[in-house]
């Protein structure tokens, strides 16, 4: 299974070895800001064989560019709308606000998404433990 992570460079610097629990082909693509992640990046990842795309950006109020993270959330919404139109489950795209440089939360979110994809139950509850605590 190929999983692509599109991530703001300032959100997290975790590498492949930090995500050893996730099997399969994992590709991490970093951007100067979440606001730089485009709908085409998400669509291209699917065209290049991804079965799931995860977009991770800094938490609200912590983006270096003020609203880059919120722009990313809108782009994910746009990508999901297009995917639905062409018959791909929008749940194959996941979006997370991640505390900056908190590798634990980042890894946890990715694992949850990976488990959901692997189980084939795309509508499974993907609320992370951290979100549940809130």
């Amino acid at each position: 299974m190929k999983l692509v992570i599109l991530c703001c460079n300032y959100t997290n610097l975790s590498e492949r070895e930090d995500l050893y629990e996730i099997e399969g082909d994992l590709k991490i693509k970093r951007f100067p800001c979440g606001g730089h992640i485009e709908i085409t990046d998400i669509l291209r990842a699917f065209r290049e064989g991804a079965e799931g795309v995860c977009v991770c950006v800094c938490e609200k109020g912590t983006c270096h560019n003020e609203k880059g993270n919120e722009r990313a959330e809108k782009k994910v919404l746009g990508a999901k709308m297009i995917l639905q139109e062409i018959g791909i489950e929008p749940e194959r795209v996941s979006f997370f606000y991640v505390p900056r440089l908190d590798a634990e939360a980042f890894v946890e979110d990715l694992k949850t998404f990976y488990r959901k994809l692997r189980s084939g139950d795309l509508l499974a509850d993907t609320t992370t433990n951290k979100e549940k605590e809130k």
Partner: protein
Amino acid sequence: MIIAERRPIPEILENIAGYDKLLVLGCRGCVAICSAGGDREVAILAEAIRLARQRQGKPIEVFEETFIRQCDPEYLEPLKELLPKVQAVVSLACGVGVNLIADLYPSVRVYPGVDTSFYGANVELGKWVEKCRGCGDCIIDKTAGLCPIARCAKNLLNGPCGGSQGGRCEVRKDMPCVWHMIIERLKERGELERLLEIVPPKDWRPAGGEGLRVRVRPDLAY
């Protein structure tokens, strides 16, 4: 500006089903400003088409280009060089652009990538609202600059209709009553008496009631 909206992708895919080389052609005019057909939307649609066709097992080569405008023949000139590479064109311009391509290049299979909706303003990020119907006979000099043809659900020339409540339209509760706004504004200016003048029934011929509308300026035309 002219407001447009991308057509459903399945409809676009149906139109181009028989081709394997396609040009998605954007326009940097109105449709770029309303985020329907500029460079970014060209890239998104092209990628969506590639992905969808790959999944159908019928890969397609999609070229991307955006012209400054598609509503002037001179701006469509570069299309000549692109046409030999493709079998069809999906234009993200408004209907004017699609029509002009069809006029100038009769052999080209050109398909609309957007639905052309209305003349509107970008009132907030991601929201466009109709402000003008293009009816060809403006009366907004009498109505404080607010157009009852475009903005009144009943197109009343001598409003209000009496159905509005609290300044909201009775047909669309989410819409302000434009006649309420007109009256409030004229009252503030001390010009309410302007409304005592009854506007006669509108001549709809300039609005397209006589078919194709053509404007010629003798001081410019040869």
